[in-house]
């Protein structure tokens, strides 16, 4: 088990180094960063001076070395727009994003697990068809459109809920629904299909032969097995939720890291964008490490393989 976690951890580190490398070289492909930082009418001497102070005159591999060394110390450069370390900007926004995650996840799981199980148990019946239709709709509906639609109906027309920005509990409702719809739909369909597979298995047949009640057959014997593939999707979607809320946060003017990413692009804040991408990668690696550990907890074949 310890070796399993250690291996996953090292894999994560390798991945981060790769991400940092790609981010660095992609950045250099777009030209000299000094040009971005200086006003258009800057003098040539100022430009040369800035290039020297930033160390941009050395060979590329040397620059990359400096970049990596700084990154390891937690220094990913300063944001041009905010005039403070990009990492600090990232961390000042992260809590706002994390505030909508628990609600969204809870919404997704509370709706998706029972609906997925019910659709599998009553396959082809009314509840399966209705939830199937909702599922397809939920997956097919683009985030930004749903967000705008919700704002139009509940904020503009009905005036029940605030349309943007952070605030009291009512501010969380629309962003949570917008983010959660896709998750509910995705989880529901996956739980349904993996439940169907498990329900058809021999060990479920044996559980019934033992005379166990359907409640125990479904909630003990099936669910634990059906959750194994769901967990991997959870890792992927959770990562996407934290980092990819760009559209939703932009629509709702939510000051989280999704919106920060958008701002970094719009204002051509290159160091900030680099930092956001790398920090997103760090988050995703951490989330996946947690998922891998949960995996081992759910599936003894992983826990005890060694």
């Amino acid at each position: 088990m310890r070796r399993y976690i250690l291996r996953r951890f090292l894999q994560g580190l390798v991945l981060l180094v790769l991400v940092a490398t790609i981010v660095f070289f992609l950045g250099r492909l777009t030209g000299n960063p000094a040009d971005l930082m200086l006003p258009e009418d800057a003098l040539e001497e100022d430009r040369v001076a800035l290039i020297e102070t930033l160390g941009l005159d050395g060979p590329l591999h040397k620059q990359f070395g400096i970049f990596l060394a700084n990154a390891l110390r937690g220094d990913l450069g300063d944001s041009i727009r905010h005039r403070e370390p990009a990492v600090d900007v990232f961390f000042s926004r992260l809590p706002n994003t994390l505030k909508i995650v628990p609600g969204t996840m809870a919404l997704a799981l509370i709706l998706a697990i029972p609906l997925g199980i019910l659709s599998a148990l009553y396959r082809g019946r009314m509840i399966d068809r209705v939830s199937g239709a909702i599922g397809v709709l939920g997956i097919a509906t683009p985030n930004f459109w749903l967000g705008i639609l919700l704002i139009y109906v509940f904020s503009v027309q009905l005036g029940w809920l605030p349309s943007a920005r952070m605030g009291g509990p009512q501010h969380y409702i629309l962003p949570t629904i917008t983010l959660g719809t896709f998750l509910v739909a995705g989880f529901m369909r996956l739980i349904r299909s993996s439940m169907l597979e498990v329900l058809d298995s021999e060990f479920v047949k044996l559980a019934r032969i033992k005379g166990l009640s359907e409640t125990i057959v479904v909630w003990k014997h099936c669910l634990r097995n059906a959750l194994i593939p769901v967990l991997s999707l959870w890792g992927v979607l959770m990562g996407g939720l934290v980092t990819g809320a760009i559209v939703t946060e932009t629509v709702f003017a939510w000051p989280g890291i999704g919106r920060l990413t958008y701002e970094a692009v719009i204002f051509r804040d290159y160091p900030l964008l680099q930092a956001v991408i790398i920090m997103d990668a760090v988050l995703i690696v951490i989330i996946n490490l947690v998922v891998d550990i949960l995996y081992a907890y759910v599936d003894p074949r992983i826990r005890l393989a060694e």
Partner: protein
Amino acid sequence: MTGDTVLDVRDLHTHFFLRRGVVKVVDGVSFSLRRGEVLGLVGESGCGKSVTALSLLRLLPQPAARTVQGKVLLDGEDLLTKSDREMRQIRGSKIAMILQDPQTSLNPVFTIGDQLRESIAKLHPGQDDTVMRRVIEALRKVKLAAPEQRIDQYPHQMSGGMKQRVVGAIAISREPRVLIADEPTTALDVTIQLQYLKLLQELQQNSDMAILFITHDFGIVAKMCDRVSVMYAGRIVESGPVRQVFDNPRHPYTQALIASVPKMRRQAGRLPTIEGQPPAFSDLPRGCRFAPRCPLADDRCRTTYPRSYAVGSEHTADCWKVGAAVL
């Protein structure tokens, strides 16, 4: 029929209701099991053996399959009229079953102790110590070495033979009246097969449990069973005491099956085979189902299903040709 009869299956019909039509997988099967007896149910893959077994337990694939007619009398009570709740109390305690593949019949995410415990706990609710003792006892009965350590292991940590012993332990843990063994050794190594069959024999001899032994292997029937029923395309075509059926098979299908079993002392050569394929359930012949493959078949065979003829004490065969010879 004697007072010893534990299980009496009469005219069982199980149909699959599929989009392309009704498929009669079990079409009028009758047999009975006496206390302490082993009845072999033999036939090719897909002839309806396993569906017959699942019909007895009422665990057919839902919603496609349904038993539409017949009686399954266990100690005189018809299981087909029981409520779901009553059926759950009967499963595991009065009828148990061993499935074919031990690799898939245990739940991979629970320890084997847990999987045995949940069955035994129904006998002693709330008495954890007693349950634990019975778990160990059951594993000892199936000769699993070091059961105290085994109970905390997961299925993937055991060999196929060991897992099938655990499945056996689950089956006998509540001392059922009837044990259905559905090809319990097919997925095991040949050397382990023999050990497992011996184990089943011992377990049976130490109790008065009746066994319905489903197999496609006549060798196993000869070794394990007292009586045998031969099934073909959803019907039983010949039944009788094992010795009689072996020495004097009357139905052409049984004759062909027995002829195709390799014999140690006979000269090596090509084994006889049965020409053709079993009929598809969706397109069964009007008369005898074996007629298209039967060397003796005539017009009557092809148009009318034969009645059952007694050809010896408790020995019957459904064949017009047999009837002609007997009368």
